[in-house]
């Protein structure tokens, strides 16, 4: 197996006496498409935020391609190529869709090339008809796409998606899955999700978080049929 693109060692974070993340060892192979699932409050979003410098870990290490980025600031991590879509979309509401993407693309490309990149990404996420609309005026799900598009426009090597299908209709969810598979051709992807069908359609391997620890790490079918996972997470309907 090739060297991991991302690795955490004994990563920990405590909020007000509660161990949100408790000594997590996590490893991701280049090119993988991994899903992170787990009960609400298991620490998934916190984990993502620590990987991207939005939260500072209390202990442990984060390694990106072997480089220690534990103490790096958010912008340094962004520069190294980790892109994240947060759970609540972090977009520029007062700017148009195209301007949002331009800000992302301009970081890596000169003006003309950035414009081409924006056009290409707009087409990929099918946001062309909305290019001139203010992002703040869009529906929740569309804003999620804008955010994913911004992440993609930065050409990241590792993409973290926190609930990409939240608030999307059945067909939109299918389109999002398609988009994620496409992103995965160029980048390693980790997605936090609750939609089982969606998970089955994109991922082969699933990591289950529970109370800040990794409960199970298995391929999709095994993980979702695991008795412990059903008890803490899926509930009866999975039976």
């Amino acid at each position, binding site marked *: 197996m090739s060297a991991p693109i991302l690795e955490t060692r004994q990563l920990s974070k405590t*909020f*007000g006496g*509660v161990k949100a993340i408790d000594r997590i060892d996590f490893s991701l192979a280049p090119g993988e498409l991994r899903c992170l*699932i*787990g*009960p*609400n*409050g*298991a620490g998934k*979003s916190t984990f993502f935020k620590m990987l991207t410098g939005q939260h500072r870990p209390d202990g442990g290490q984060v390694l990106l391609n072997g480089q220690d980025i534990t103490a790096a600031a958010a912008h340094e991590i962004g520069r190294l190529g980790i892109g994240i879509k947060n*759970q*609540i979309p972090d977009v520029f509401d007062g700017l148009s869709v195209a301007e949002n993407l331009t800000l992302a693309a301009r970081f890596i490309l000169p003006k003309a090339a950035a414009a081409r990149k924006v056009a290409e990404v707009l087409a990929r996420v099918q946001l062309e008809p909305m290019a001139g609309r203010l992002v703040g*005026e*869009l*529906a*929740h*799900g*569309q804003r999620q796409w804008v955010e994913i598009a911004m992440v993609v426009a930065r050409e990241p090597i590792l993409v973290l998606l926190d*609930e990409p299908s*939240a*608030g*999307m*209709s*059945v*067909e*939109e*969810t*299918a389109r999002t899955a398609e988009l994620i598979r496409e992103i995965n051709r160029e980048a390693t992807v980790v997605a936090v999700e*609750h939609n*089982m069908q969606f998970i089955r359609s994109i991922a082969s391997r699933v990591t289950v978080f529970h109370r800040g620890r990794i409960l199970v790490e298995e391929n999709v079918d095994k993980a979702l049929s695991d008795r412990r996972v059903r008890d*803490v*997470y*899926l*509930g*009866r*309907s*999975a039976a």
Partner: protein
Amino acid sequence: MTFLSAQGLTSGYGRIRVLDGLSLEVEEGAFVGILGHNGMGKTTAMRALMGFLPAGKGSVHFGGRDITRLKPFQRNRLGLGYVPQGRQILPALSVWENLRAGALAAGLSVQEEERWVAEVVEFFPRLKPLLKRPGGALSGGEQQLLALARCLCGGPRLLLLDEPTEGIQPSIVEEIAERLLQLKAASSLTVVAAEQNLGFIRTLAERVLILRRGRILHRLEPADLTDPALAAEFVAM
């Protein structure tokens, strides 16, 4: 009897019209699901029914009263409860304080209020161990539960829910569905829910409205959602 109704309601943001003649009728004690793609006006419909967006044309009636021109807090006092998308938890207040805030408008004495909030907490046992934590420290799913519980603390007669299952783990989705069913049985609570989760709608709703371009395009029975052909036609348009 019609409890909540909208006739030819138009609304939107500035020059952009999102609702384009929305008409719907909800009977007391009913559970109505609203389905539709992003950008078709679900959230706008909720916000217009609650009075956060001004009505252009048309009217909204609630409990036999014309509420078209009432402010959100006035509608709330009449018994319209609203759980917005994004939850809008008061992040610096504890879970308990968030719930108390939800009960404020009822104008109870402190003791009555505490007793009442404690009752609501009994109803959501998952919140119990979290009461002292700041709302902002909860995970997304926990915040959603809190938002629902907080809304119930105001003792609403009708609940407007905007994507109540978004970002919630499957077993809590089940729990929310159960709680809502119990509430409906016990107190004839009326619910209008914009939702994407078909399973949730199927379990709870008696009627499903398909929203498209700011109007109700179709009315379905929940059972229709299991029919793959119909579902494909109306839901996965």
